[in-house]
């Protein structure tokens, strides 16, 4: 792990224009936003075109990258900040890690742009939607392609902005506006952590480029490295919806469904995993921060899975599932070098099947007049055959059905967790296996309530299959859901491809044989699915949620009281503090200032009375003054 960032080789040929990947969607966004109504008719096609072109460039660059020694290319573009000791060069780092991310973002992004053409066909704000979507893709690409933490931060804030704009896309709906504000604020908490980490790097190392930071991280005091690691983790938690900042992600589902698929499932929320994986050398130097990452991942994967079991809103279930799956990724990156490749593999596979699931959910909503209540679905398998099949494949991939994506990538994480050894290995492995069972439960519940059973549709709903522009991306993503795991783990091992970033993959000595792990996980998953069938499939689903439920279900419905905790621990004290400060300001500061002014005014008014208009009294005053001065002079000289 010493030679983390190989010395870059001079860049020529195709890779020297790698910046086109970012510039294309950015230009699309600028054109659509500045062009105004003139671009209404063809704006969505242009936006889709820019992302497809960006995907083509990214693919070509990745292919060119495979032929280069070291598989790492650093591009210096221009001087961003140059003042005193502060020298920030804007540049790109194109290495195996950023390449797979660029492919995921542009690939899934392009599919979701195509899907949105159908999904947003009748929306009056279509041009604005596509402009924001392009802006998001550009910012996300900058986030993963930047060669320094400052470049990453610019992209980081860019995706935060795009996420805010897109969650609040239907801003006339109060729920959407509130959810956007909540997402923005909770992200801000995380961003403060990231910003502080960058300040620390500036102060301690004088540089924020990955090469510079990773090269000299060994020179820092242990406490400083741990602080940087924990602050980076705070940023990652905010962006990725991890404990304790997970509450914004389910609410973010107020945005249009393609946004949920692209930003809040496949790409942006995995930025935290990217950040931690990219900062691997920092975490290598601080076991404390790495252990915290591990704990955050384990806690979040359970919270997400438990909360997902009790919700009736199809998108919220998927959102909690996202929270839980990203918990798996955090768990894996927290395990250290053995887990990085597993985390990235799960991230990519998750990008495929979760985007596919969200697009399927969008198709269901499209058919059900934008309803998201699973209790009013049911029996949709026959009405929406393509959606059913693609959604079903995504579902099987997510729960880890043997030989589909999730089976390869999730089992890899569970194996790595168990390989940690000791009691912590057993706890983490147990949590991961339990999470897999819960995942099977809530996803099977979702499948049964949506596609099986008796129709419980509301009056006047006539489900119909979505147009081809929507089903085609779903089909492609379904292929990805089926094959991605096999391709990434077995056919073209990701750990080998990522070797220039994370070093040689270690051949782990398995404490528990992979076959046993696989059998146990599959059994647990089957049990979870069976339980769901016993609860939901075997009997009639009531159209309104039962009110008399156990405390566990109530807790799960309320997301394990995350909002309540945030409100009572942070929001209310904040409100109190604000009120106290306002009171202090009004009474203390304003009181002192106003009081001084009033005293001066009143005093002057009284003193003014001495000005009687009688000349002789003035003369007396002058005389008295003169006598005083003369007396004083005499007293001083005497």
């Amino acid at each position, binding site marked *: 792990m010493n030679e983390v960032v190989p010395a870059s080789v001079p860049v020529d040929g195709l890779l020297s224009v790698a910046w086109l990947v970012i510039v294309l969607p950015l230009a699309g966004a600028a054109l659509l936003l500045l062009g105004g109504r003139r671009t209404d008719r063809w704006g969505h096609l242009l936006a889709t075109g820019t992302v497809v072109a960006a995907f083509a460039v990214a693919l070509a660059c990745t292919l060119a990258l495979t032929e280069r020694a070291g598989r790492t290319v650093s591009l210096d573009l221009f001087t961003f900040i140059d003042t005193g000791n502060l020298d920030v060069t804007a540049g790109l780092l194109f290495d195996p890690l950023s390449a797979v991310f660029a492919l995921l973002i542009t690939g899934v992004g392009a599919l979701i742009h195509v899907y949105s053409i159908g999904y947003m066909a009748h929306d009056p704000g279509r041009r604005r939607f596509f402009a924001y979507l392009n802006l998001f893709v550009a910012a996300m690409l900058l986030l993963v392609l930047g060669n320094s933490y400052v470049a990453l931060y610019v992209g980081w804030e860019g995706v935060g902005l795009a996420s805010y704009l897109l969650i609040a896309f239907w801003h006339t709906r109060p729920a959407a506006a509130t959810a956007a504000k909540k997402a923005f604020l909770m992200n801000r908490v995380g961003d403060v952590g990231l910003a502080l980490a960058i300040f620390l790097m500036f102060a301690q190392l004088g540089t924020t480029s990955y090469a510079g930071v990773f090269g000299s991280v060994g020179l820092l005091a242990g406490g400083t490295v741990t602080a940087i690691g924990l602050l980076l983790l705070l940023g990652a938690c905010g962006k990725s919806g991890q404990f304790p900042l997970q509450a914004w992600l389910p609410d973010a589902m107020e945005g249009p469904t393609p946004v949920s698929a692209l930003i809040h499932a496949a790409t942006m929320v995995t930025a935290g995993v990217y950040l931690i994986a990219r900062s691997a050398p920092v975490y290598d130097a601080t076991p404390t921060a790495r252990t915290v990452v591990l704990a955050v991942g384990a806690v979040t994967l359970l919270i997400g899975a438990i909360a997902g079991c009790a919700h009736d809103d199809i998108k919220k279930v998927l959102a909690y599932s996202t929270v839980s799956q990203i918990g798996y990724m955090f768990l894996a990156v927290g395990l250290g070098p053995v887990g990085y490749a597993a985390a990235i593999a799960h991230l990519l596979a998750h990008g495929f099947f979760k985007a596919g699931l969200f697009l399927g959910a969008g198709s269901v909503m499209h058919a059900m007049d934008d309803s998201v209540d699973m209790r009013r679905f049911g029996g949709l398998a026959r009405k929406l055959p393509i959606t059913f099949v693609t959604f079903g494949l995504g579902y099987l991939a997510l729960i880890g059905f043997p030989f589909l994506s999730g089976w390869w990538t999730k089992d890899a994480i569970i194996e790595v967790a168990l390989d940690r050894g000791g009691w912590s290995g057993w706890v983490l492995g147990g949590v991961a296996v339990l999470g897999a069972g819960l995942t099977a439960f809530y996803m099977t519940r979702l499948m049964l309530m949506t596609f099986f059973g008796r129709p419980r549709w509301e009056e006047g709903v006539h489900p119909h299959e979505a147009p081809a522009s929507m089903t085609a991306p779903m089909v492609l993503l379904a292929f990805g859901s089926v094959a991605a795991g096999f391709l990434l783990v077995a056919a073209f091992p990701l750990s080998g491809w990522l070797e220039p970033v994370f070093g040689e993959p270690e051949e782990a000595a398995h404490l528990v044989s992979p076959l046993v792990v696989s059998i146990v996980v599959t059994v647990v998953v089957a049990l979870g699915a069976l339980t769901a069938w016993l609860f939901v499939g075997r009997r009639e689903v009531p159209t309104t949620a039962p009110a008399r439920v156990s405390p566990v279900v109530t807790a799960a419905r309320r997301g394990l009281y995350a909002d309540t905790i945030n409100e009572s621990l942070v929001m209310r004290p904040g409100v109190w503090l604000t009120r106290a400060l306002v009171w202090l300001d009004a009474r203390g500061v304003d009181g002192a200032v106003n009081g001084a002014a009033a005293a001066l005014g009143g005093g002057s008014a009284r003193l003014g009375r001495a000005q009687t*208009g*009688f*000349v*002789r009294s003035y*003369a*007396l005053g002058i005389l008295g003054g003169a006598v005083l001065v003369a007396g004083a002079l005499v007293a001083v000289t005497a």
Partner: protein
Amino acid sequence: MTITNYLVLAAILFTIGAVGVLVRRNAIVVFMCIELMLNSVNLTLITFARSTGTVEGQVIALFVMVVAAAEVVIGLAIIMSIYRTRRSASVDDVNLLKY
């Protein structure tokens, strides 16, 4: 011949002038009292100039006279115009300029 006599005389003149300014109401009398005070100061200046053998005191006394002459011109003009409008030369009647 000591300077004490001159200084005491000057002090007496100054006091008479000051008391006159404070107690008299007629503007002309007040005015004359001011002149008395000015001249008592002049006397003091001259006394000290003579006793120390320098000329500065005498020069200042000349200045005071010039200024007093100018002041008399303006002061009398003001008193005249006040008398024309108010038919009174009492300083207590001219008390509109106040708080």
